[in-house]
């Protein structure tokens, strides 16, 4: 490796360490905010008066060390978290972690497919849009994406529900069979897909205007090869940076979408816990989802730096 390449590796490593540090700090701050705001509720979240049954009340008192000072409670709580003990629901008395992880599995599947769908279709449509600029295909795509980015996921979800389940009756409202995933996936994926389409288009156009694309053409590279080999690689770099925020969008979107389509994922559980004021559940879920979002952003940022070879030595 050349001296310069070694230098760049060091800069990259420094960046990764800095970024991980920031992520840990963020999670720490979130945990503080979550814990202490929850405890601002009169009587505290673990107030045994809010418990539903005497058994739950007993379980609570055993688990949460309610007689200790609040800062100690926090430390103990966080310690438990790291050992996999996320507490008990004050409504059901059940362990939170199994409920959470199992329902998250469902949400993750849904979200994962939605992300894939949005990426694949978004990139393809974005390329088409860039290459057929200002002609009919482009105009249609622009119209479609503008509309989609103006539609909140719940609006889309409810409309789809009405159209396909009630009016047309093509798809049954959620039952165990798998093809009922289609509507929730579309509801979740459409907005990110539209965003990715626009992003890809802008990026492609930007790259197509670059000098090195002209050089490739001047070397005699065939047009389609110029596009796929020389431009796409560079154009997709900004799209990667969107995946982190997209995961955040899908998580928040799933709260409503799972509700509307009555899918038993973590999103629905979370909304229920809000409605029922199941404070321990709210706290645990908020923290859990926040951690996922922070990690997603972290991985995206690092991936971006690794892929873009123009690492600045700053």
């Amino acid at each position, binding site marked *: 490796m*050349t001296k*310069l*390449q070694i230098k760049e590796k060091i800069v990259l490593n420094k960046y990764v360490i800095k970024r991980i540090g920031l992520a840990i700090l963020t999670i720490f701050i979130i945990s503080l905010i979550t814990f202490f705001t929850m405890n601002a509720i009169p009587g505290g979240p673990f107030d045994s008066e809010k418990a539903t049954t005497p058994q739950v009340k007993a379980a609570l008192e055993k688990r949460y060390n309610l007689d200790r000072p609040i800062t100690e409670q926090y430390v103990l709580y966080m310690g438990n978290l790291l050992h996999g003990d996320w507490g008990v629901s004050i409504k059901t008395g059940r362990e939170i972690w199994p409920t959470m992880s199992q329902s998250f599995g469902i949400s993750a599947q849904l979200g994962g497919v939605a992300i894939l769908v949005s990426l694949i279709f978004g990139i393809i449509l974005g390329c088409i849009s860039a290459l057929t600029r200002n002609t009919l295909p482009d105009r249609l795509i622009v119209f479609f994406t503008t509309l989609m980015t103006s539609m909140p996921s719940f609006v889309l979800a409810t409309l789809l529900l009405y159209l396909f389940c009630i009016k047309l009756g093509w798809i049954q409202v959620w039952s165990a069979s798998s093809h009922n995933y289609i509507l929730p996936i579309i509801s979740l994926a459409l907005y990110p897909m539209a965003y990715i389409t626009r992003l890809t288009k802008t990026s492609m156009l930007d790259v197509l205007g*670059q*000098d*090195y694309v*002209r*050089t*490739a*053409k*001047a*070397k*005699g*590279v*065939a*047009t389609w090869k110029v596009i796929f080999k*020389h431009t796409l*690689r*560079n154009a997709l770099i900004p799209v990667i940076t969107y995946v982190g925020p997209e995961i955040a969008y899908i998580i928040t979107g799933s709260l409503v979408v799972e509700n509307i389509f009555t899918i038993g994922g973590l999103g629905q559980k979370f909304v229920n816990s809000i409605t029922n004021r199941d404070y321990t559940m709210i706290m645990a879920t908020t923290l859990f989802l926040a951690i996922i979002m922070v990690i997603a952003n972290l991985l995206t940022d690092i991936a971006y730096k690794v892929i873009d*070879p*123009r690492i600045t030595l700053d």
Partner: protein
Amino acid sequence: MSNYILEVNNLQTSFFTDSGEVKAVNGVSFNLERGKTLGIVGESGSGKSVTAYSIMQILADTGKIVDGEVLYNGEDITKWNNKQMAGFRGKKCSIIFQDPMTSLNPTFSIGSQITEAVLLHTDRTKKQAKERAIEMLTLVGVNEPEKRLKQYPHELSGGMRQRVMIAMALACEPDILIADEPTTALDVTIQAQILELIQDLQKRLGMAVVMVTHDLGVIADMCDEIIVMYGGSVCERGTADDIFYKPHHEYTKGLLRSIPSTARMKERLVPIGGTPINLLNMPKGCAFCARCDSAMKVCLTEVPQELPISETHFASCWLNVKAQYEAENGGSQDE
């Protein structure tokens, strides 16, 4: 087979923008002999780069060759399809650009960019292409060529990058090399090196060179023939001697006058008055008339035709017509 490797006849290229048609190249003609060097001199907006891009047909989407022909070995390449042009570019005729930093793909290694050119146009295997790349890098004076193959553009200095561009352009031994302001983005000391390199390679490989520049100093040594462009048209053409010592166009004269010279250090610099031409709104007559101190009424309304001054020297200026008329009819009109 014609004498000339390249003939450009009455080339007209325009860009069709939202604001209207920009006539970047407005009737440019020149010929290039095998192994010789042609210099195209002009300021920004003169159409010199667009002329080069028109030959290679690498204009931006809004640009189009509206009229005229470009003959390569007697064949009109403006009529060629994409496939034929792809075989022309990089193989028969190559171009190097002004800014090697932006002209090289930042995500590909130097080696892959050079070998791409080789693999496209020749039958070499990947291994042979790599060897060819090393050969070319050595030829252009890049040290440690094996190491360089794996490096990326941002790891090299400006001069080094330009050498890489030249290596890439000459890898398939083209008949013509077009150099579009190859030294403008480089330091002065490197400039001389690159120009020397181009001249040296030309002698070795026997290719014809078109040197596009705004810098009079660059072309003085190198060129067998020089054309001066302004506002999309050719003002004057001739040998270096003709242009520098016997300029016959007001624009050329203005250019030469505006060069600071150590011989005339105490005198004020003499710029060319006025502002550069607006290509959206061209005058009916000579492109330079608005800035010309000696402009006549005819200059405003009629485009001057090219008049021979000598066997090698031609200029498009009504003043020459006037002078010739007066010479033929004895004395000036004021009598």
